[in-house]
């Protein structure tokens, strides 16, 4: 299916519309049972946004519990090694729980508390969102149920144990390929069955309205901090931004504040798995088509009959056949460049960063790092490039060992 390019809008920050549409993408494609609930989440979120006390409480937790602002770090040895652009890492892996995910779970749990909900459910792929959700549930003494595909449970054992220590119930999902997509199906089935007391903390900027916009708004602090920190460090805006993309929450979090700064080039890196040409990948923009799944219209990996196909990535957090609807729109509008990186390229970047910078990146941002490796050498030395280091790699050491043929 081809999509005609859309006309350049006055602002790239004006969407979604009141019904949650980003152009033809987004919307609210859920079962009728959930509609009143989705509408009540939207209403509660609108009220919270208008309440300075809500933002003040969130800011307080982000500062003293999460550890924001996260540093903007000049990666000197990597810059020298690659030769070319001056590379900065936005260190969101230094947040409490080791990833950007907690920016969102902290916001949503405060909303769930405002709504008087007692039980929290979540889906997780790599386990970072599950851990971030279990953490805030422990903090506020709320019941937490996390759905996780059994394939992901096997490859992310440390995070599974972490969630259990935090008091969450981790429910293995065996349907489909046992990954993030199937975990999301099961979480939606739980929600439709427990509408009265349950709040669903979706982990990425996808799902039915208002989630894509709400998750983006809880994550956009990443880009807002970068703007300020880069002004302090260099006295000007960055020239390029790079982030990895599964559902797309860390990417939209970094990008959003810069969407209307025309001179800032923006790159989002999709997981190309074993290579786009092999069919075993998770690159929904590079190789998918618009469709409807999990509450929104967006680019999906699917066949000619509209059946969803399995995604593949070495990174559990990117192993999803869809993408947030705002990214679909930004793709069609041409504002953001979406590029693929394979498992092997990400593994190589993972090792390079670890050896040169003493930072073990998660496999997800290792995809972004691999693209930095391609791009930086082509750019001049005064080019300021910011990559979102959205998660730390402790959780991935077993996967990496296996991929490198090392027995631990």
């Amino acid at each position, binding site marked *: 299916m081809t999509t005609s390019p859309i006309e350049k809008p006055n602002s790239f920050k004006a969407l979604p519309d009141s*019904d949650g549409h980003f152009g033809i993408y987004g919307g609210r494609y859920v079962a009728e049972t959930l509609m009143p609930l989705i509408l009540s989440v939207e209403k509660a979120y609108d009220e919270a946004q208008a309440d300075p006390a809500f933002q003040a409480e969130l800011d307080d937790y982000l500062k003293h519990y999460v550890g924001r602002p996260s540093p903007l770090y000049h990666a000197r040895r990597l810059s020298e090694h690659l030769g070319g652009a001056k590379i900065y890492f936005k260190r969101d892996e230094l947040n409490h729980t080791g990833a950007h995910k907690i920016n969102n779970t902290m916001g949503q749990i405060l909303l769930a508390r405002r709504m008087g909900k007692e039980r929290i459910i979540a889906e997780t792929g790599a386990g970072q969102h599950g851990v971030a959700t279990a953490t805030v549930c422990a903090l506020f003494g709320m019941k937490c149920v996390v759905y996780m595909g059994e394939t992901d449970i096997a490859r992310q054992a440390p995070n599974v144990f972490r969630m259990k220590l935090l008091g969450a119930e981790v429910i293995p999902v065996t349907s489909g390929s046992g990954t993030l997509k199937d975990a999301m*199906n099961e979480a939606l*089935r739980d929600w439709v069955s427990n*509408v009265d007391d349950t709040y669903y903390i979706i982990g990425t900027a996808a799902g039915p309205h208002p989630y894509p916009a709400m998750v983006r708004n809880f994550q956009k602090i990443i880009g807002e901090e970068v703007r300020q920190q880069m002004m302090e460090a260099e006295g000007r805006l960055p020239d390029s931004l790079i982030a990895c993309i599964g559902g797309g929450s860390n990417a939209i979090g970094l990008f959003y504040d810069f969407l209307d700064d025309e001179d800032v080039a923006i790159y989002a890196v999709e997981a190309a798995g074993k290579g786009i040409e092999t069919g075993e990948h998770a690159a929904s923009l590079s190789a998918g088509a618009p*469709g409807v799944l999990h509450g929104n219209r967006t680019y999906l990996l699917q066949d000619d009959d*509209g059946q*969803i196909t399995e995604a593949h990535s070495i990174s559990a957090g990117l192993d999803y056949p869809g993408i947030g609807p705002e990214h679909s729109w930004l793709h069609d509008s041409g504002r953001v460049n979406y590029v693929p990186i394979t498992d092997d390229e990400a593994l190589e970047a993972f090792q390079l960063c670890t050896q040169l910078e003493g930072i073990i990146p998660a496999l997800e941002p290792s995809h972004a790092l691999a693209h930095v490796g391609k791009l930086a050498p082509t750019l001049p030395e005064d080019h300021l490039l910011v990559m979102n280091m959205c998660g730390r790699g402790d959780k991935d050491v077993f996967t990496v060992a296996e991929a490198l043929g090392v027995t631990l």
Partner: protein
Amino acid sequence: MSRKQGRLKARFEQLAAEGRAGLVTFLTAGDPDREMSSAIIEGLPEAGADIIELGMPFTDPMADGPAIQASSIRALNAGQDMKATLAMVKSFREKDDDTPIVLMGYYNPIYIYGVDRFSEDAANAGVDGLIIVDIPPEEDAELREPANKAGIDLVRLTTPTSDEQRLPALMEGASGFIYYVSIAGVTGTKSAASSNVADAITRIQKFSDLPIAVGFGIKTPEQAAEIAKVADAAVVGSAIVQVIADNVANSDGIKDSPDLLKSVLKFVSELAQGVRTARS
């Protein structure tokens, strides 16, 4: 092929004249394979099904419980796709031009087929209505308009969470009948108390004159009879699909039971018996 207008309307009028509720039976098209699925569908009217609901299989049936999830996978593994589903309807219509057929499923396969082409092809095949689980009224105009134009009803769903504030919006643009999802949950799990169902029907009737079919959680002839006392039709899905599951080949190398067709139709007859005697 000629298409008779208003099979759904005619069927509900006939049921009202007979003073009884109807039985709506759900099966996934192509489960366990196309040939057997066609044979079952062709046997349904004689077994007592008043309306046939045919599932369009989908890889990610988010509103369905384990039984219908498994049926979807069986059908897809046997090669079922939208074209095959429409062809099954067309072939059924060559023998039966009265029993209404309603396709049920998720939006993506229709969206990918193309809403205009789908509406035309479905109408030509003899489809009377659509129940699309993941397209609420806020989003359904893009499908409802071409479907209605082709003479197909888009059946609206109401649920225990549809309060009196929301019901008017649900009824605007509704046609065919109203499907009341009697529990907050997925298919084939818990069952509603019939007193709650009766209250819900009274609430819906304040806003709509359309017939009301009740589904989700109706598993036995007795439960179907209870619902048939208060609703215009009772929908049974997972329990029928489970009879197929119990009779298909499994991984132990046991072949499809020779009694599969007979078992399914026998169960449907029992359900029909329950529905037909409910008000006597």
